[in-house]
């Protein structure tokens, strides 16, 4: 039985098994997608804005557990926020929810969804 889990905290395992925001949105206001050139992971984030607020957020893609958990947490963090507030969400905010020991080689797995979100908020077209 594998004892050490490395970077896989309970939050990451839970979000990987049962992500809450992993779904496409019908008629999103903003969409962006990017690829991690190191591993080929792909994340697409969709946002529905309502009166300047993120009314709904969702993501799809092919990604590892860390990246998927990061996207899922991020979608949760930005939902209900003003676009300007959503833009202010940082890696540290996501990490504090993930509660995991992420090594530098996997940090890009955490930050990919954040850069895709920024791209979407900067006018990613649906």
């Amino acid at each position: 039985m594998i004892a050490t889990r490395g970077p896989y905290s309970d939050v990451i395992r839970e979000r990987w098994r049962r992500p809450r925001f992993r779904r496409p949105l019908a008629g999103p206001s903003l969409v962006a997608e990017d690829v991690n050139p190191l591993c080929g992971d792909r994340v697409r984030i969709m946002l529905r804005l309502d009166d300047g607020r993120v009314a709904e957020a969702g993501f799809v893609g092919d990604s590892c557990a860390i990246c998927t958990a990061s996207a899922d947490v991020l979608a949760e963090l930005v939902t209900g926020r003003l676009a300007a507030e959503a833009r202010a969400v940082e890696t540290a905010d996501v990490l504090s929810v993930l509660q995991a020991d992420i090594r530098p080689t996997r940090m890009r797995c955490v930050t990919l969804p954040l850069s895709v979100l920024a791209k979407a908020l900067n006018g990613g077209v649906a």
Partner: protein
Amino acid sequence: MRLDEVTRRDFPVLGRVVNGHPLAYLDSAASSQKPRAVIDAMSQYYERSHANVHRSIHTLGEEATELYEGARDHVQRFIGAGSREEVVFTRGTTDGLNLLADALCASLAPGDEVLITEMEHHSNIIPWQIAARRRGLALRAVPIAERGLLDLEALDRLLTERTRVVAFTHVSNVLGTINPVASICARARRVGAVTVVDGAQAAPHLGLAMSALQCDFYVFSPHKMLGPTGIGVLWGRRERLAALEPTRGGGEMIKEVWLDRAEWNDLPWRFEPGTPPIAEAVGLTAAVEYLEKIGMDRVGEHERALSRQTLEALAALPGVRVFGPPAAVERGAVVAFTVDGLHPHDVAALLDAEGIAVRAGHHCAMPLMRRLGVVGTSRASFSVFNAPDEVDRLVRAVADLRSVL
């Protein structure tokens, strides 16, 4: 005695404990570990004999030149090359393929065709793409048929009188497929195409004889065969090399220089501008000597046994998919696999927590990943120092993975 029982103590790094477990290094296809003999040869060279080569009229310079040129003789013998003039030192497989794409395509005309395959490493795709764009060439690819083998009927259809270059891998770094080099080269020759073989995954594993392979050019990376990084080997059939115009200039590759022209040096130095990787050549000699002492037959046999063991054990696990030809077919020393519901990077990270080093991701073969319908795979690969109990550890850990994440 099994080969690993003889070799293990020669590799200092294998004494390491990683994440609380003895290191099981199953990533030699990316870069192998180095025996003490290679490490010592390089530090001794730096401690006693380092100087620049060829132009130095002093003792150390002469020693360094002798060692550097001596490496060429070792490589010539190791790969069964006709003469030492045919052995060019580069910086690696990627460097050699870029050199060939530049030099071979320089004389081609728009509409001429370069043929690669669907199972190439990016380093045997991108240099041809760049050259094709620059010269208006058409780039085509031989597809893969059943069981991870090249579709040779498609190859015959794709070979036309417009085909000028056929560039393909000897052994796939993902599928482990061993391509029939001589047969592919014979077909290419019928249409007058030059053949370039990427031997990165073959040189560490198979005994090579350039004459039997029947290709025009062959490139590989010593760092995957117990040698150092930073040096590569490009073998070229003498008349082909002689006909090739150099595309990289500098010191050492010339005989005489005027301000507006120059006369090229003889082979092989014509293709070695600048100060070469001297210490790396010294390390390469030690690596070749190490492998020759074991014998490439025994090396290949040992690595094939480990591959077969891995392939059979992993294929028997529920939810695990293995790629490439079945165990009964002769393969290279790599086994790529996926685990249902797990991303390859998570597989590698979880195995690392057990002290097991495997590669994960697209393996620089994105077109092949797309063809296989996966984002990536995990890959175990083997060298002379790997033991069957390391395979057991891998298989046990993979069997447990799905309960962990």
